[in-house]
């Protein structure tokens, strides 16, 4: 399946080389290199854009190298990845390299796998999008530095070396990149540059390259949006509607206004903002505001009712068809054996450890600065401009590193941006304002992984072959009613609802996947690995169930149906082999396996568990095999697999957001339980060596862990867990 249904990656990687145009410019005495992604767009330097001084790479006279990233870093390490790509070709002094977020120029920063039309971090596409672009940026800058040195020293280009931030010639002449930056910037831009061959790589694939931001992040020095302390900046907390779909009728803030440290209480399109000098002050004052809400159209159901409705809808069959291969009805009519299973998945909160926030300041020159985890800069710039009533090119985005994200900071309605800009505007732009959600706000303000139901059915022939598979899915659409609808919803099917199932990998002659899209004011969003959070669980536990039903080994059963899927098969074999799948498990331990492709990366995992006296699993060890194309930073690939496994494991074991007459029950980490260190298994990651173009790793570690553990649970207890999380009371 394509990234979000947009242009296929492979085609892009073939054409990007030809269609890149190069631009370079001098800013002061710095060299700035940028490209435009489309051949019909003028080079960045020549085009008047919101931020003409933003390119890809800037080399300053003091030898510092600043890379402008098209991707935001929420911890997945893409800044490090992009720095590695630039460094591979530029060969600067690594300790002088830093990365900041670029914005305001879709031609420069458009996400390549998304067709270059939107700047967005998502779909685990950051490395794929950057692979050509940032290596070429580094190579172009280096070529221009060498050309400048050749001219200055009057020696042939071919005799000049440039490495580790220094340009040198055999005659003994030597100078730094920074010293050449100004003259390089005024020289001609090479029409094309030759990138290094893989055999020449020093940084790509280098295990020893230290992540450039580990030290500040180990000493409390990394700055996040919550840490902003601009002069006179005020802090605000929101009062959101208590029910989804409720709207503000009126509020009385007279008591709150009189409290110490409170500056103002204002209404915004998304609720009431309590503004003051500090977080403690505004949190207390918030309790003193009384609000009346209009809740006629609000969601008032409870989770149990919603689940019952989903079950009934699943029994009826889906309203829209996502996949239809062969003749499923005929195959079921002839089946020797039919197996059925229904699954229920709860809403899930992303709960990044830094709760959602943004800060704004209207400057004297009419520009509006907006700080935050800008995962969709184009959209946020446009929305900020609209709410402020100014032109988009007056909005300066300050892209902050964030304390996690997991999808939450790419909000299709720009929720926190609207709140921050509207609050500052309602105060007449009298002060810079930071809107900071509390943990409770974060848990209860929506944008959840949608709840889903699956009803699966398999037809087997006499010899135990899987001849037909049906799945009916029921759940809310993420893309519907958003600006993404046109590209993501096809024939009534949101590709994000069915990804991982409609394109399931097994050779099954008859397949039908259909979908009923439900609606609710409860807002939903992509949550690390999106549709595959539930489709991989349903598919991979069901396939396992069928394997046991026909008396086949779960690995062999899968491999027999993966003959045309060499990358799935290879990671499955690798994980099984490294986990000792065919050897006996230690006493009291049980193994389960799962494999899934998501975002063009292939991951298989074998989980080894034991079960305690009260029937709860303990996951001891996970062996993970991943094929993500070229591993730009192998250690970061490993880190993302480890993190994805923990993230997915916590969710399937313990996490759920539930509604009680429309109200969200869970408010903090007591109700919304997440994985903790004592529950983290030891993880072994094996990376497939390949020359395939790089794909993502931020999300693909998540999908297989749930079904791998559930399959091990079956081995241990004979029970199939079909209502998630495992801790759901209906399982006990």
């Amino acid at each position, binding site marked *: 399946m394509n990234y979000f249904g947009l242009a296929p990656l492979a085609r892009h990687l073939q054409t990007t080389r030809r269609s890149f145009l190069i631009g370079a410019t001098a800013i002061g005495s710095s060299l700035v290199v940028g490209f435009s992604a489309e051949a019909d767009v003028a080079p960045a330097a020549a085009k008047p854009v919101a931020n003409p001084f933003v390119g890809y790479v800037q080399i300053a006279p003091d030898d510092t190298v600043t890379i402008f990233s098209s991707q935001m870093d929420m911890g997945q390490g893409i800044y490090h990845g992009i720095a590695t790509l630039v460094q591979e070709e530029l060969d600067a002094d690594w300790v002088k390299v830093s990365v900041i977020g670029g914005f305001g120029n879709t031609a420069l920063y458009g996400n390549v796998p998304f067709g270059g039309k939107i700047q967005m971090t998502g779909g685990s596409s950051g490395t794929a999008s950057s692979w050509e672009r940032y290596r070429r940026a580094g190579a172009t800058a280096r070529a221009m530095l060498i050309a400048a040195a050749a001219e200055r020293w009057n020696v042939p280009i071919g005799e000049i070396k440039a490495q580790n931030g220094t340009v040198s010639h055999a005659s003994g002449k030597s100078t730094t990149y920074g010293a050449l930056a100004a003259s390089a910037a005024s020289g001609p831009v090479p029409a094309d540059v030759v990138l290094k061959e893989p055999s020449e790589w020093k940084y790509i694939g280098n295990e020893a390259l230290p992540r450039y931001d580990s030290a500040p992040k180990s*000493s409390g020095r990394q700055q996040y949006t919550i840490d902003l302390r601009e002069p006179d900046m005020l802090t605000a907390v929101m009062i959101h509607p208590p029910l989804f779909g409720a709207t503000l009728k009126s509020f009385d803030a007279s008591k709150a206004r009189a409290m110490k440290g409170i500056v103002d209480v204002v209404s915004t399109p998304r609720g009431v903002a309590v503004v003051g000098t500090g977080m403690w002050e505004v949190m207390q004052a918030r309790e003193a505001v009384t609000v009346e809400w209009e809740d006629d159209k609000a969601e008032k159901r409870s989770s149990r009712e919603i689940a019952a409705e989903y079950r009934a809808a699943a029994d009826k069959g889906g309203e829209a068809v996502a996949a239809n291969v062969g003749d499923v009805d005929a195959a079921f009519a002839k089946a020797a054996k039919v197996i059925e299973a229904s699954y229920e998945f709860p809403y899930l909160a992303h709960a990044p*450890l830094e709760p959602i926030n943004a800060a704004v300041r209207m400057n004297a020159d009419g520009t509006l600065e907006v700080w935050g985890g800008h995962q969709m800069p184009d959209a946020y710039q446009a929305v900020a401009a609209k709410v402020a009533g100014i032109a988009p090119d007056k909005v300066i985005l300050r892209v902050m590193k964030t304390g996690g994200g997991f999808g939450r900071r790419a909000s299709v309605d720009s929720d926190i941006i609207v709140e921050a800009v509207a609050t500052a505007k309602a105060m007449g732009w009298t002060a810079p304002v930071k809107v900071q959600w509390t943990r409770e706000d974060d848990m209860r303000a929506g944008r959840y992984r949608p709840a889903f139901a699956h009803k699966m059915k398999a037809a087997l022939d006499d010899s135990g072959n899987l001849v037909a598979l049906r799945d009916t899915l029921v759940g809310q659409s993420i893309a519907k009613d958003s600006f993404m609808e046109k590209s993501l919803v096809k024939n009534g099917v949101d590709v994000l609802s069915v990804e991982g199932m409609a394109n399931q990998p097994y050779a099954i002659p008859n397949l039908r996947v259909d979908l009923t899209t439900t609606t609710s004011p409860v807002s939903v969003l992509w949550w690390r690995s999106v549709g595959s959070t539930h489709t991989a669980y349903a598919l991979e536990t069901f396939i396992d169930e069928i394997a046991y039903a026909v008396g086949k080994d779960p690995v062999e059963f899968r491999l027999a149906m993966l003959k045309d899927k060499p990358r799935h098969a290879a990671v499955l074999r690798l994980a099984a082999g490294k986990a000792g799948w065919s050897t006996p498990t230690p006493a009291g331990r049980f193994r389960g396996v799962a494999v899934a492709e998501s975002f063009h990366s292939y991951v298989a995992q074998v989980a080894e568990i034991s079960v305690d006296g009260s029937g709860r699993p303990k996951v001891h060890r996970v062996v993970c095999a991943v094929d993500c194309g070229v591993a730009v930073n192998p250690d970061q690939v490993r880190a993302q697999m480890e993190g994805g496994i923990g993230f997915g494991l916590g969710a399937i074991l313990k996490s759920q957001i539930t509604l009680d007459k429309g109200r969200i029950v869970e408010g903090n980490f007591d109700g919304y339980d997440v994985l903790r*260190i004592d529950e983290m298994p030891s993880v072994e990651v094996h990376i497939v060596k390949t020359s395939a173009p790089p794909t993502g790793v931020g999300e693909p570690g998540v999908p297989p862990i749930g079904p791998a553990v559930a399959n091990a649970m079956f081995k241990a207890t004979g029970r199939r867990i079909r209502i998630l999380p495992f801790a759901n009371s209906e399982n006990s």
Partner: protein
Amino acid sequence: MRITLNGQATDLDVDPAKPLLWILRDDLGLVGTKYGCGQALCGACTVLVDGQPVRACQTAIADIVGRSVVTIEGVSGKVAEVVQMTWTKLDVPQCGYCQSGQVVATIALLNANRKPTENDINDALSGNICRCNTYHRIRAAVHEAAKLLEA
């Protein structure tokens, strides 16, 4: 009200009920100590009070008058150095947001116990949530730091 903060006598004229977390962050500008839950459920705000790990979000300033508070900005000494070096060497952080709390809690653990077992680590750190789930590396880094301190 006076406390010793990172070695310096510090006088505070604030609401006695105000949590240490917001005094550090909003009044004193020491933003290395993080807010994650406000309810002593996540450990992001862990600081040392007289050497013991404490959740600053649930510590009213009135309750620690006269005591010595050390935040991530003020940790020092051999154990702190080794822990931070190990964290960097193993590239533990992902987003990094929980790591002030993890590092401070680990320093407290290793100050008290130079050879922590798996269970000791679980006991000391299970109150510190990492939503990026860097737990695997945190565990490895604690063991590595303990090994280096022994040498």
